[in-house]
């Protein structure tokens, strides 16, 4: 456990222990190195986004955000997330229930398979859907013949987003479901509750923070995905642009201030995500279990 100055030490009057504490000079040097590194790679970029966004003045900033093309990109981004997040969260709940509550052969392989989208490059993720559903592919050709266009249109963007955000909710929910344990649910069933009754009254309240945590992470990635969506979008201006794609178009058009204005919205989303993540992390596991669980989580 990390020792904070406020936490009571076993021997409060004990002098600083040279065996476990670093010399002040080493301490100062390491803190400086850490701050410099993070300042260079995290803080300067965040400040730069807002500085560039406002570089042409507040009026230009607002104009860039309310531009019809910008609004259309924002709408598509919100719509994509509104489809991808609930689907992947539903999957997360089902997968975590099956994996955390039951034993079955092939469980370990299933866990590995769920992780696959994490290890596939975004460009390759998008490409999978072009190969499967593009007009030259068998399935895509058949769909195109029936007037259904998926690649270079919105459905392709939604599918690619679902693929890249696929593991996020499940990955968060599986360990939480395991940690909470099944005693309360078993008690509910033995006392005569039905399956859905148990789910809504016992399971869901127990994992609700973890669920929200998974949703926040899934949403951030869904709204911010660029590579996979870029492959399937076909760059049809004002029609199939999500916010990250629209940023690329503005940037390549040398409309830097506008590109950064739209970027600043996504940066605010990222910051909100980080804050939500910070507050949710502590609530994810019900307090009573948190103590006995600590070593398990680390392992």
């Amino acid at each position: 456990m990390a020792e904070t100055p406020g936490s009571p030490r076993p021997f409060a009057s004990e002098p600083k222990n040279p065996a476990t504490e670093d010399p002040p000079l080493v301490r100062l040097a390491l803190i400086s190195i850490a701050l410099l590194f993070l300042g260079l790679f995290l803080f300067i970029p965040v400040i730069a986004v807002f500085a560039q966004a406002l570089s042409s003045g507040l009026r230009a900033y607002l104009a860039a955000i309310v531009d019809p093309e910008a609004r259309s990109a924002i709408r598509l981004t919100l719509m994509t997330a509104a489809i991808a997040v609930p689907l992947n969260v539903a999957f997360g709940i089902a997968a975590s229930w099956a994996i955390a509550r039951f034993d079955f052969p092939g469980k370990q392989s299933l866990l590995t398979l769920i992780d696959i989208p994490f290890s596939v490059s975004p460009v390759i993720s998008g490409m999978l859907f072009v190969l499967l559903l593009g007009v030259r592919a068998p399935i895509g050709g058949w769909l195109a013949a029936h007037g259904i266009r998926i690649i270079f249109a919105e459905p392709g963007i939604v599918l690619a987003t679902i693929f890249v955000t696929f593991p996020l909710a499940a990955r968060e929910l599986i360990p939480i479901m395991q940690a909470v344990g099944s005693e309360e649910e078993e008690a509910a069933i033995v006392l005569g509750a039905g399956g859905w009754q148990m789910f809504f009254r016992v399971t869901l309240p127990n994992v609700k923070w973890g669920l929200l945590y998974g949703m926040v992470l899934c949403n951030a990635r869904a709204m911010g995905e660029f590579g996979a969506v870029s492959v399937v979008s076909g760059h049809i201006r004002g029609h199939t642009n999500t916010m990250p794609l629209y940023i690329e178009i503005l940037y390549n058009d040398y409309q830097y201030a506008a590109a950064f204005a739209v970027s600043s919205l996504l940066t605010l989303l990222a910051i909100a995500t980080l804050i939500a993540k910070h507050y949710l992390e502590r609530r994810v596991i019900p307090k009573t279990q948190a103590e006995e669980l600590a070593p398990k989580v680390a392992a």
Partner: protein
Amino acid sequence: MAVTTRRTNVLPGFNLTLGFTLAYLGIVVLIPLSTIFFKTFTLTWAQFWAAVASPRTIAAYRLSFGASLAGALVNSIFGFVVAWTLVRYEFPGKKLIDVMVDLPFALPTSVAGITLTAIYAGNGWLGRYLTPLGIKVAYAPLGVAVALTFVGLPFVVRTVQPVLQDLDKEYEEAAATLGATRMQTFRLVIAPALIPALLTGFALAFARALGEYGSVVFISGNMPMRTEVVPLLIMSKLEQFDYAGATAIAVVMLLVSFLLLLGVNVLQRWSSRRLAA
């Protein structure tokens, strides 16, 4: 399929949830993924080889692997320092930093890409001081390494931090009591406990960097043979409707990613065994 093997399980919903899980996994992940392998089998060996071993592809591998390796190494060193200061020291702003470390996970890659480019371009905040020194970052291989360092930054910090937090100070006290200097304690007691986590973080950062597209596309300048990474090369082949070439290169990259994933799994098992011991 047997419902339980361990004990009688009174909980409902096994068939429903596992069925849904497998169906969804199949539709969203496995079927799309299988297309790439089917497509590969339609290529002739000559076609495949021409795509994966052309000079332009080799140059892209070299840059992708080199810059990812550089980024992962930088992240291992500085990520370790960050994790150490976050766990062991108190200083103002510590909480803010702890929260901010995950920024590269949350920030869309295209935002990161244009921002880093703006900072390191010739007239940018940092670029204007680096250019007179003859250091070119944006539109050069160094810029690719900078972007890949950014995207991999959280991995080492977040794998080392929990292990360091759980490391009992009693061992360090015992080492000191037995006459070890602080440096010896670090080298012989602390470092061995952290190495599996550090390697895991390194491998994760490396794997993430290899596949990265969004943040690199802006800062690299995309010059074939010079600043083109593998995902960019796949993208440009797709844009020219050279699906065969794109597939061949993608298969090579997928196999590398799966090998890395396997390596990370082995490392994590090693790590948890070591912690349990």
